[in-house]
């Protein structure tokens, strides 16, 4: 920026930025090296179908990242305006795995990727599960099994006793890559018959968890949160909402939460996606 060469324009209002002094700026290309930025190119390591309606994609990141169960990454999908957020299913060093179900244009793009394709990622984003040293019940439903599987591996690593249960529509929907302790299917084609929600009381009474973590469709989160509260148990829920920025600035993904006796906005992307079930204002 300007030094002596600057045109000394006098503003009618006397307004000017601090442009009249010499400020040294690094070239933008150099600044990128300053610290590890949360945007990078990554390589698809493998992609495979793991159930009738879901795929697993493994991605090689250019470096190791710290990522917690419940946190997410956001993938740029060619030709689309909004990135698509995915909670992480697995993480080893610089490799992360994402489980996804084809739902629309974004997941269609991701499904079309091949090994060695380069994708554009931001993350890790958001707040993951706050792991407590307490006997844990993990409740997943459908593709919500993904972050639960990651959480289970974290709990196992820490030696925290846990039970991971998950509900699916039918046998074909169960991803064959996941180890789940107990499975429920709506049509009874695998495991116990019926929605996982029908079994929540029984699970709590027999397993006697001290904390519940859950991820799945809204109705599952709401029901599990309400049930847990009846038993006076802490419950952490991973919420989902359409996002634009992924970093809390656009305020596009807000939900109502209770804070200090007031109802306030919280962004799923930055304040969440994991919230205490007791603080969410359920619709």
């Amino acid at each position, binding site marked *: 920026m300007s030094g002596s060469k*600057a045109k000394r324009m006098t503003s009618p209002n006397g307004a000017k*930025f601090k442009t009249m002094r010499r400020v040294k700026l690094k070239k933008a290309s150099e*600044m990128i090296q300053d610290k590890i930025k949360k945007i990078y190119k990554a390589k698809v390591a493998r992609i495979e179908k793991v159930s009738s309606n879901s795929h697993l994609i493994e991605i090689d990141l250019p470096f190791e990242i710290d990522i917690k169960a419940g946190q997410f990454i956001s993938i740029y999908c060619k030709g689309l305006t909004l990135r698509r957020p995915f909670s992480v299913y697995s993480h080893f060093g610089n490799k992360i795995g994402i489980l996804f179900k084809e739902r629309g244009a974004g997941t269609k793009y991701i499904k079309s990727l091949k090994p060695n394709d380069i994708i554009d990622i931001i993350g890790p984003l958001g707040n993951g599960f706050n792991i407590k040293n307490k006997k844990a019940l993990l409740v997943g439903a459908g593709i919500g099994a993904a972050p639960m599987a990651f959480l289970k591996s974290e709990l196992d690593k820490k030696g925290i006793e846990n039970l991971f249960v998950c509900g699916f529509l039918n046998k074909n929907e169960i991803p064959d890559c996941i180890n789940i302790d107990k499975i429920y299917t709506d049509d009874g084609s695998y495991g116990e018959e019926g929605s996982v929600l029908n079994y929540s009381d029984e699970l709590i009474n027999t397993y006697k968890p001290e904390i519940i973590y859950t991820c799945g469709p809204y109705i599952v989160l709401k029901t599990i949160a309400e049930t847990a509260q009846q038993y006076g148990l802490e419950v952490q829920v991973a919420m989902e909402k359409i996002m634009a920025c992924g*970093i809390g600035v*656009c305020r596009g993904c807000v939900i109502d939460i209770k804070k200090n006796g007031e109802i306030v*906005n919280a962004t799923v992307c930055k304040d969440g996606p994991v919230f205490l079930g007791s603080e969410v204002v359920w619709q």
Partner: protein
Amino acid sequence: MAVITDILQTDLNGIILKNPIMTASGTYGYNNEYDDFINVSSLGAVVTKAISLNPREGNKHTRITETEAGMINSIGLENVGVEKFINEKLPVLKSENIDFFVNVAGSTIDEYCQVAKICDDNNIKAMELNVSCPNVKSGCLEFGVDEKSLYELVSAVRKEYGGFLTVKLTPNVTSIEKLGIAAQNAGANAVSAINTLKGSKIKISYINGRVQKEIITGGYSGRGIKPVAIGAVIRLSKAVDIPIIGIGGIETLDDVLEFIAAGAEAVQIGTANFTHPDIAQKLVQDLEKYITDNGFKDLDELKKELRK
């Protein structure tokens, strides 16, 4: 440490930016939120999320949806209010050396004026008046669609605020030129064009044997609005003498050049920040490279060439 030359220096007749790449209100937070992706202080200026006199909760219904060539938002101006902005957000802008414009929204002239006065008292160098948000029920857009109301508003704000003042115009009018002239006559230093277009999307799904519809109405932004924005900048550049800050669907260097050719002195990157959070910094680099590679002395020379 290399020194960026001042070849990108942008004179908006009242304020000098280090380069013409700014970020649009509502897409960049209040200060350094994009710090995880770029060096925010390298940008020409950041325009803050719209600030109102009192905090606003924003809208309750679905706030965003993607469209074929962009997105629709109906945030409803959720913001922390001017007091919290001054106390919590402004110090970060200052300590991080970020050049910024405060975007101001209101429902009444008095509200705008109170915020303008506070900005003036706090020595805020540049302000952008949001008179064109399509997502709030009263005020705002009403000022932006009527020349007389706009003139009255800008004149009133001008009395309270001595800094650089740009007025963000809506494309949802018959003649954007007339609004630009009104802003100029009322003492604005520049106009920003354009804000979002009013649009809707109907999401149709078939669940449990029934068709379900959700209608989302709000401001349409992104790639698809660029031709509308370029058209508006061309018309404005023929109508007003004050600088024009071009906004609308900018994603590439070619887009920036197109806006400059249309008559914009600086540009704002909006929706593309969501798609590529490092885009604004990349455009600064690209523009600098384009100027050097093609043998132009500086941005001003490129501007002259593009407008021949």
